[in-house]
């Protein structure tokens, strides 16, 4: 009943949750970016990654 496409889309939507919940993986200063600790720029970078993942998920879900 649940299609493969929806499962794939669900996984794509879930990935940022895993990335952000793994706080110890990014709660550090080094490597910094122009003086900005890793903690800040890594989480911001994940916004860009989220956009890509969500867009693929939207394409998968839209084609039904």
């Amino acid at each position, binding site marked *: 009943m649940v299609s493969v496409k929806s499962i794939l*889309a*669900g996984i794509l*939507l*879930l990935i*940022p*949750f895993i990335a*952000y*919940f793994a*706080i*110890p993986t990014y*709660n*550090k*200063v080094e490597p*910094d970016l*122009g*003086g*900005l*600790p890793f*903690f*800040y720029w890594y*989480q*911001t970078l*994940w*916004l*860009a990654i*989220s*956009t890509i993942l*969500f*867009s693929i*998920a*939207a394409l998968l*879900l*839209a084609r*039904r």
Partner: protein
Amino acid sequence: MLGLAGIIVFIALFIVFIFLGFYGAFWRKGNLDLLHEWGLAGRRLGTVLVWFLMGADLYTAYTFIAVPSSLYAKGAIYFFAVPYVSLTFAIAMLTMPKLWIVSRNRGYVTAADFVKDRFNSSILAALIALTGVVAELPYIALQIVGMKSVLQMMLLGIGNAALVSEISLIVSFIILAAFTYTSGLRGAALTGVFKDILIWITVISVIVIVPLQYGGFTHAFSAINAANLSARYDTLPNNLQIAYWSLFLGSALALYLYPHSINGSLSADDKNRLMYSTALLPIYGIGLAIIALFGILVYAVPNALSVVSKYGGALAVPALITSTMPDWAAGIMLLGIFVGGLVPAAIMAIAASNLLVRNVIKEVNPSITPKGETTLAKWISAVIKFLALAFVFLVPSTYAINLQLLGGILITQTLPAVFLGLYTKWFNPWALTAGWATGIISGTYMFFTFGLPRATSLYPTPFGLMYAAVIALVLNLVVSVIGTLIASALGFKTKSNISAEDLKR
């Protein structure tokens, strides 16, 4: 304070804003006597406009002021706004297209319309609607608090600054109420695009210019280290990790339960376009992340820092802008933040008035005509704006902030009926009502026993501080599930008025 050139630019752009607001009534013209035409722009907004409209919800004057000022004062914990932005759109992707489909098929204007039919309970629907209104009002008040910070910075040093700022706010709100009345959500969408262009100009200029001129983050962090502050800025203290994830998770669950977010989503013209614009919204969050970092960057700019330490963290971004930019450019940017309060205030007031008219007043007086319903909603949206304005004038802004924190806890308690209701009709309406009551009471209790007077929505648990909305939601879900199990054991079965077909395409 802002020089004359800045004030002229500010006023000139505000006139453009007013024009766009009124022009909205003539744009993609529809019969504005119907609630979905006035309150949802006729469900005719495409990918780009929904993106701007939803972005306007996230990027409010209050966000612009509150996130950086919290980061400035309390450090890294307030960067939770960034994961929150990403996760909230994942949740929106899972819920809003479904809600959009059922709303189009059955003519719903609010989430409470859906709950009423799904669980066949007007009482549960009215409770959900009232929760939405109660949570929305302080949110509108906070927009005004944000706008006041802009005016305060512009008028710094002028003798009767308080009076000038109150008159400016009243004039702005009369104009806003007038064009919301005539144009509805169309006016908000058009002015939203204008506001976002100004905001993006601000974000990009500040993040390029300040690091070049003032040595940027390296400089800011060494100033923070030299100042020996009690909060941690470089990373998160270990004892705040649970607070961090529960804040970003709880806020992400809450955002699309707020009436204005649902209103914005339902205004889309097509399910797929709604999904595309939702998927692209984390890009907006990158701007928010940069603005949040202004709260740290302020430590690198001595002129701005002296203003902020004298007048408070709320001025972090306005002070950073006026002390690093030429007057004319600062005028553009401050107007961006100022109308960044007006546009969301309009969307929020429209959403709250839709709820009151549809799910409370119409329940009491079912004979109301569609035209009477819309006229009433237009007037109520105006009244709501002026109530918020009066509230901000009469009580200290800390009350508005506290009420908004409580509002976040309350709105989260509508999740089982609204979000889970989209996926299952298993729940019993009375169990959901009991769960809602449990969440509301426990959340309010936690907020009043620990949150006040600290102005925090965190609550101490054996594992550390945790966002009270999440704790209350868990209790709410437990009661909803156990209640439904008992109800079905006693033979009660939920009669849903929505068929499985209504939820598909």
